[in-house]
């Protein structure tokens, strides 16, 4: 298995206000798989994504990516691990305001020894016309495409997406999902996407449903459809 998650537990607060967010999560994801984590607010899906991404620590359990265990890593190694293996996309695009579209993508490319071709990627992202624009000159969808470009330009093993369409309208959301699908297909990255849009499960290879910090359902989607056919 490419990604192995075993017995992950996480709680916040202490004493009476202690909240157990993850109550022992076990999950395996294959390389190149498109995995969707679904669940209502507070179900623990973003926390799980952050632990996989090495930006949060689990209280118990382990995560192994391509044979490397993250819980043994110190801060420095975790940074190197993120640098080498992970790409992040957030609901907010978090682009650097005074860098152009192309330069924002180069910020990601800088982290890799073998980045993807920036020119080609900009074309794939359909941002050629906007490459010299600053983020505040772009629409929300264009900004999110730029953020995706920044995440995948280093060709990460895993692309972690935290509600990437959360701030976008229907059409733009579909555009973004199509793009992520294209990227997944073209570059073969494993995609783990957190969403509470139930419709998105239809385009995933694997669907994991979380509630109250536990996996309620974990299945392979046999009836996977293309992003452009999604409807909600």
């Amino acid at each position, binding site marked *: 298995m490419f990604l192995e998650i075993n017995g992950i537990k996480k709680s916040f607060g202490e004493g009476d206000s202690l909240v157990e967010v993850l109550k022992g999560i076990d999950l395996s994801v294959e390389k190149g798989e498109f995995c969707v984590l679904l669940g209502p607010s507070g179900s623990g899906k973003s926390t799980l994504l*952050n632990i996989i*991404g090495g*930006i*949060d620590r689990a209280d118990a359990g382990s995560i192994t990516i391509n044979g490397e265990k993250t819980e043994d890593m110190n801060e*420095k190694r975790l*940074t*190197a*691990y*993120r*640098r*080498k293996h*992970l*790409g*992040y996309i*957030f609901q*907010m695009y*978090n*682009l*650097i*305001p*005074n*860098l152009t579209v192309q*330069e924002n993508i*180069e*910020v*990601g*490319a*800088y*982290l890799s020894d073998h980045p993807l071709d920036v020119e080609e990627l900009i074309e794939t992202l359909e941002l050629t016309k906007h490459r010299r624009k600053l983020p505040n000159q772009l629409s929300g969808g264009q900004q999110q495409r730029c*953020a995706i470009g*920044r*995440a995948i330009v*280093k060709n990460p093993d895993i692309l972690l997406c935290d509600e990437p369409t959360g*701030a976008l309208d229907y059409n733009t959301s579909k555009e973004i999902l199509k793009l992520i699908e294209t990227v997944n297909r073209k570059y073969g990255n494993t995609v783990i996407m957190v969403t509470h849009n139930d419709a998105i499960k239809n385009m995933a290879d694997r669907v994991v449903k979380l509630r109250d910090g536990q996996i309620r359902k974990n299945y392979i989607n046999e009836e996977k459809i293309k992003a452009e056919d999604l409807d909600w």
Partner: protein
Amino acid sequence: MRNPLSKRLPREIKGDLGKYLVIFFLMILSIGFISGFLVADNSMLKAYQDGFSKYNIENGHFVTEHKMNHAQKKAIEKEGVTLYEQFYAEKETDFGATIRIYADRTQVNTVCLMDGTLPLAEDEIAVDRMFADNHELQVGDQLTAGGRSYRITGLVALPDYSCLFEKNSDSMFDAVLFGVGIVSEQGLKSFDSKELYQCYAWKYETEPSTEAEEKKAAEELMKAINKEVALKDFVPRYENQAICFTGEDMGSDRAMVAILLYMVIAILAFVFAITTANTIEKEANVIGTLRASGYTRGELVRHYMAMPCIITVISALIGNVLGYTVMKKICAAMYYHSYSLPTYETVWNADAFLSTTVVPVILMLLINFLILHRQMKLSPLQFLRRDLSRKKNKRAIYLSPLIKFFSRFRIRVIFQNMANYVMMLIGIQFAYVLLLFGLVMQPIMEHYQEQITDSMLAKYQYLLNMPLSEMDEDHKLRSMLAMLQFEQKVETKNKDAEKFSAYTLRTTDEAYMLEDILFYGIEHRSSYLPLELSEEDVYVSSAYADKYGLKAGDQITLKEKYEDKSYTFTVTGIYPYDAGLNVFMTREHLNEVFDLGEGMFGGYFCNSEITDIEEEYISTVIDLDALTKVSRQLELSMGQMMWLMCAFAVIIFLILVYLLSKIIIEKNAQSISMTKILGYSRGEIARLYILPTSVVVILCMLICIPITNWEIGIIWRIMIQTMMTGWLPYWTPDGVYAQMFLTGFFCYLIVAVLELRRIKKVPMDMALKNVE
């Protein structure tokens, strides 16, 4: 691949041009001025030091009562020295100054000709360049001194008068009322021999290698001279203020300006750090994303440190270029305004480069690194969640609902910007130190002159030239006759003249500059000093007590100027007299302590001018001019510098308050935008966001004014104690406090207007665009 984040830097400068321009301006100004100062100081110091060999400066000089004969000279030269005649005449010019006239020197203390030619004819003179400047004398002008008229052929610098001290015991040099000049050999010969001072310079055959050796050699030489002739004055080079003061002063100035620069840079580094911290807060999500994507903490720290460092490096480079060109000339002119220095050549100064480039960059790096490193310790998740407080469960400080809403709001703004306000306090404090120093100098001088005028012992004090050479234990009859003759010659018909005994001893405390203390032995029921002294009483002047921290019951130990003999006295009381460092006792007591003989006296107090005593019997006249020499010269040589300091202080005040206020408005731009949407008027928004800063600035000013006064009082005390003889008490008139407050207030008013404009420019859609 080059880090693409670096592409932000030029855009950041463009985007916040105003801020970076003022920082650039302040840094370039500071670095340029300090660099110019250090380069000028170093170049001139080198010229001054090179002058010792170039102009063959004496190892010392002494003045005798009478011209020495060949045998006497031979006997003294056996001590391993070569003697050179440096006879001079002292004449009063038609504009009331004293000029000391030497013949051209060819062997020792040779002359540096700065303009024109050296005198050849009997009626020609070359005068000291600074003395000429102070009296607007030029080559070709006529100068009348001692009733003779001279044509000025040149302007010179005498290496043994780089600082125009008339007497070595003077507290301060006086380039207004004292100058030196050179006439031809023939010109000097034209003076009557009685008009000439028998001055001899000496050079050691083998230069002593250490200061201790030099002191020892000088003491030995003095003993040898004393065996041959009666000394009127003996000044080894290391004690000669006219030669050494310049070098020492230049050295001490250097340390002072370097500290000044480091303080400016440290303050700017903190301003930068606060600005960057604000940017980090604004860009928390971006930083979180970058950290989550694998950017290391070090990479981001380096990125945010780049701007302050680049700006410092560029400012340092431009500042140094300015320093070596424009500023150097300004600073050299300042030195030429105070000292009579020879010409100089600009020399590359590694120390200046270190102080103005390397140290500022390191300081900037260090301060920013420490603050950024601490901030960047937060986890990527904390950045993403904008949870930037390092304290867990940080609670809002409780404010009573009884406090009006607007006041509570303003208090919250103050809490939110505490770091900025602390920096503002430090900045205002620093600016005020410079400002007060600049403002207070003239009042101190004026106050000193007023005090002296009010507390003068007498309008004139005449110190007499006692015929010490005739006082000989082995020839009592000759001594008695000489004394009788002296007493006759120094009798005056002035009815208000009152005799006093006088004696001079030297201080022994090495922590201060060694200086002469004049002892007065006064008459019982003196009409000039309302002091009822009993036989053993020893009073010290308030200036002496103030400088050395003396009080009744303390002991003072002083020594003979040219001997090892020392005396210890117990202070009985303090007499309010600020014009000099003096000791007062009864005439009988003084004569007895110093074994001067009963009935002996050394001078007169007098409120009218004494005209019936021959000039040769008067050694010194202490009048208002003589007593205000220190203040006059300090005012002259430091006046320009004081204005510069005031201007610099205002610039620093303006820039720091502007930068920090700007950060506060920028930090709250989102909220300001929201208050606009909610319908608050511009006036109300100003009351919410500008008034807190106004209150803090005014509070800072009110806190800083007394603190600054206290600090300057201490600095002044240390400066006067360690850097000069005599005493100039620190004094601040109330008007200066008002000036400080008003300067700060008007500076802030300018900033407040700019901030109002900034608030006006905050767009309403800012709050709408930001979805977080």
